[in-house]
């Protein structure tokens, strides 16, 4: 093997090594990004399902007492009520659940009766906790009072977080439409 051949081989090997390093770096960045995206998607699925369950239960009362079930129905905050243990009131644990978006902390907080609000979903985008209310004919409801009697709700959750060093932000969203199970009563 001549010196020229050795030098050519080294040059090609260096190019291949550089290519491999670049490939490895990109792959690692992609892995971190996909991992973050997967975690975000899972968090959105879990939180939206939890929210949907509480929406469906709102207004439940085994004693037949009737009430709205949704005393506060805002665009980025909502409160659910139910008489879960059938004692005739809605003042026990988990019988009143409130969700509210905190813009400063980019977090949606969930509070149950008698307990301090806990972070429910973090890294929420601006306007990433959006609630829309509809009547039984599918018309959107804008009036706060009318929203308490809503027949269906659309929840839109959007969150974004760092996908790893140098890979930028990953963003994911989920949209849930759910009909009211317990009749809306004033």
């Amino acid at each position: 093997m001549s010196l020229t051949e050795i030098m050519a081989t080294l040059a090609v090997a260096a190019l291949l090594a550089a290519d491999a390093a670049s490939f490895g770096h990109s792959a690692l960045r992609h892995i971190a990004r996909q991992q973050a995206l997967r975690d975000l998607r899972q968090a959105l699925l879990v939180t939206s399902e939890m929210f949907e369950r509480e929406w469906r239960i709102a207004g439940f009362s085994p004693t037949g007492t009737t009430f709205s079930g949704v005393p506060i129905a805002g665009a980025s905050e909502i409160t659910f009520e139910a008489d879960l243990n059938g004692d005739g009131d809605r003042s026990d644990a988990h019988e009143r659940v409130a969700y509210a978006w905190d813009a400063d902390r980019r977090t949606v907080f969930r509070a149950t009766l008698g307990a301090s609000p806990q972070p429910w979903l973090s890294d929420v985008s601006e306007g990433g906790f959006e609630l829309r209310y509809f009547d039984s004919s599918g018309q959107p409801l804008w009036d706060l009072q009318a929203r308490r009697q809503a027949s269906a709700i659309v929840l839109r959750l959007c969150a974004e977080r760092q996908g790893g060093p140098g890979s930028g932000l990953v963003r994911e969203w989920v949209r849930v439409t759910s009909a009211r199970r317990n009749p809306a009563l004033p």
Partner: protein
Amino acid sequence: MSRRWSDPEGAALVLVLGWVSLLLPATLWIATAAWIELLQAQNARRATTAFYVAEAGLDRALAWVAQKRSAEEALRGPDGAQGTFDDGGVFGVPGQFIPFGPAGEGYEVTVSPVDATAVRVRSRGVGWGGGTRAVEAIVHWTESGEVSVRWNEEFDS
């Protein structure tokens, strides 16, 4: 130069092994990521189908219960006679599994008393992949004969 360096035999093996050592981790990662995504999707599918199967059972049972004039009548079961084997049932004996889908899905419904004017209708759904969820409704009869239904969902079913 010795024969060791001048003979190119075996160079292909070294090159291929080098590339394989690069590509193998990437392939493994892709397979792992796909597997995790699949598990997530399967979990969601299990829970979702179980819920909607349970709700289908509950809706069907409520349609039957709503035709009754009292809680006591609703508890008599399909044969309408008190003290028989199907008391507390809707589609047969209480808790009888009713198939509802091609992959073993189905629901079990029971009716139990709450008080003199109300019954609890509970439906347990078995969804795709064996996932289970349960929903229930409390049905009340007022003195004027009106029926009200309040829907509930079990968190640990």
